């Protein structure tokens, strides 16, 4: 069984998502339970894979399909870097799928089934993008992810249609550019397999076609991961998406393209050639721009969700900056920040989902007294906010520490200054929220879904909130183990020589 675990990560949610409508037709909630169970099984497979990879000392597992050997056939390649991200994605997906149950409890079977079908497909797309070892297969999973993402964003209500449509137009440009880039690579080397591509790209790195391909890929992924200045679609999409799924969309949808970018930059193209070095400089400048502009825009927002969306632009900037440093610490910082940011941002959007569920509005200046009404949400929010700012012992501190070390090692002091400024701005806008909640007098908000009791929210919503809050602490506490035990096993070749 365990040798087939890599394919189960993708196959189980895919099957469940496609059967979901049928089961929902039979009994309203059956489809939802099926998808949740499949995602739980997928998490178990991902943990098995991670275990196997770590036990093998970081040697990648190759899973080939249909008896076609690579480079002709499609394969899944799982090394420490992507198996840890698979665990992360399936973990968040499981929590958020559980969390979505109260949001759809008054809907008819069509809505419940549709919501969970899209949710399962989004999980499939993200996991497939991360697990695959084939560049065209990555495009297919990218489109599965995007199309289901458009659907989930459009489920959010009236205004979300426009946000989803705009995201669709911009996202399609990104996917087309990615496809163009893959076309150039295929025309140069005649292969689509990532490992084969890495071996064959060597003689071509000085041709203008290679520069063109790199440009297309970076812009394509930049659009998908909302790298500044390509982030225009993102605030609307995060703000208006379905409140139950927003945590998954905001937490994970930008991480898979970011991972793909890291995969291309460090594992396929290698960073020790002139084209890639200038490409890294450009990514770094865009990252710095995102960190500053995102943080300043977040300060100006009055809607909690919009503020977090702009803060995401800043955090993606951190990841891009870590990628751009081109040394080991920067790389570790970027990967660790991907993990931490996925957890923190999901946690914050879970909190927002709870506020939307209970009161229907998330105005930044009407949060007073939330600490009494929604105790668990408040604890999670404070933990996530401290982590976003980067206070020890929460998770965010450690990734920022590694980014700092990376900037110091590459003697790029400008990056250090920007990191500090952006962290301070983070502190301003998160302490503003904490002040609103604890100090301001109670805001008089009518309950949309009244709920008495200590939790303040239905049980399926309270459990994921508590788990995410604990995970932020846990990630901070065990960050050294994650780095030494997992990420350092899967460093790209460039750093090993």
């Amino acid at each position, binding site marked *: 069984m365990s040798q087939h675990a890599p394919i189960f990560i993708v196959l189980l949610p895919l099957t469940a998502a496609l059967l979901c409508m049928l089961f929902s037709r039979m009994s309203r909630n059956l489809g939802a339970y099926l998808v949740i169970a499949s995602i739980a099984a997928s998490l178990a497979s991902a943990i098995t894979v991670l275990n196997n990879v770590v036990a093998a000392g970081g040697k990648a597992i190759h899973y080939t399909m249909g008896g076609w050997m690579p480079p002709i056939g499609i394969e899944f390649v799982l090394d420490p870097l992507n198996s840890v991200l698979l665990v992360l994605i399936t973990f968040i997906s499981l929590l958020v799928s559980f969390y979505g149950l109260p949001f759809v409890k008054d809907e008819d079977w069509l809505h419940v089934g549709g919501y969970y079908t899209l949710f399962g497909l989004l999980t499939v797309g993200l996991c497939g993008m991360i697990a695959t070892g084939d560049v065209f297969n990555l495009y297919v999973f990218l*489109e599965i992810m995007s*199309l289901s993402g*458009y659907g989930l964003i459009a489920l959010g209500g009236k205004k979300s249609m*426009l946000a989803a449509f705009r995201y669709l*137009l911009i996202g399609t*440009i990104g996917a087309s550019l990615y496809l163009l880039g893959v076309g150039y690579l295929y025309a140069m080397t005649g292969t689509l397999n990532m490992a084969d591509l890495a071996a064959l790209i060597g003689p071509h790195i000085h041709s203008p076609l290679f520069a063109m391909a790199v440009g297309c890929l970076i812009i394509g992924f930049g659009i998908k991961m909302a790298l500044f200045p390509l982030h225009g679609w993102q605030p609307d999409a995060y703000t208006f998406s379905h409140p139950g799924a927003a945590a998954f969309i905001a937490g994970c949808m930008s991480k898979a393209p970011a991972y793909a970018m890291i995969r291309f930059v460090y594992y396929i193209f290698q960073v020790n050639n002139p084209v890639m070095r200038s490409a890294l400089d450009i990514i770094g400048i865009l990252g710095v721009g995102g960190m500053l502009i995102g943080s300043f825009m977040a300060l100006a927002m009055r809607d909690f969700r919009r503020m977090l969306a702009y803060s995401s632009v800043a955090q993606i900037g951190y990841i891009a900056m870590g990628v751009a440093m081109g040394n080991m610490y920067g790389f570790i910082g970027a990967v660790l920040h991907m993990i931490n940011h996925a957890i923190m941002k999901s946690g914050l959007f879970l909190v927002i989902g709870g506020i939307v569920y209970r009161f229907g509005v998330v105005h930044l200046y009407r949060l007073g007294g939330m600490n009494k009404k929604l105790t668990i949400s408040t604890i999670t929010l404070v933990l996530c906010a401290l982590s976003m700012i980067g206070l020890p012992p929460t998770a965010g501190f450690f990734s920022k520490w590694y980014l700092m070390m990376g900037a110091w090692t590459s003697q790029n002091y400008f990056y250090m200054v920007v990191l500090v400024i952006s962290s301070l701005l983070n502190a301003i806008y998160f302490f503003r929220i904490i002040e609103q909640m604890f100090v301001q007098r109670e805001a008089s908000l009518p309950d949309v879904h009244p709920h008495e009791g200590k939790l303040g929210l239905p049980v399926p919503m309270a459990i994921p909130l508590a788990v995410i809050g604990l995970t932020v602490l846990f990630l901070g506490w065990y960050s050294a183990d994650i780095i030494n035990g997992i990420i350092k096993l899967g460093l790209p070749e460039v750093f090993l020589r």
Partner: protein
Amino acid sequence: MDVLNEFLKTRGIYSLVMVLFFLGVYGMVLSKNYMKKLMAMNVMQVAVIYFYLCFAQKDGAMIPIQNGLTTNPDAYINPLPHGLMLTAIVVSLGTTGVAIALLMRIKEIYGSVEEKEVLRRASQ
């Protein structure tokens, strides 16, 4: 003249494909009607498909069917880009479908698919 001929022979078709691609992007940015934006998006996707088909093209080669005469790979056209583009066509069909469904809902909610009108009503 030779330079021009050489350019047209080797890069002419790719230049046209690039023109088509950026015409699509141009249309998406500048048209004021969401339906037209969607059509421009399709033009852009078709340009990518053409790009693949162009570099798969080979002079004097035949379709990849075993005919018993030769097994030399140079005698055949590489079928893989065509196969890839079948997938890309399906993806673009899916994207178009989702986009049209969204447009129908936008039309229901705002009563129009003109950008100006929709934005005016959305900001109310």
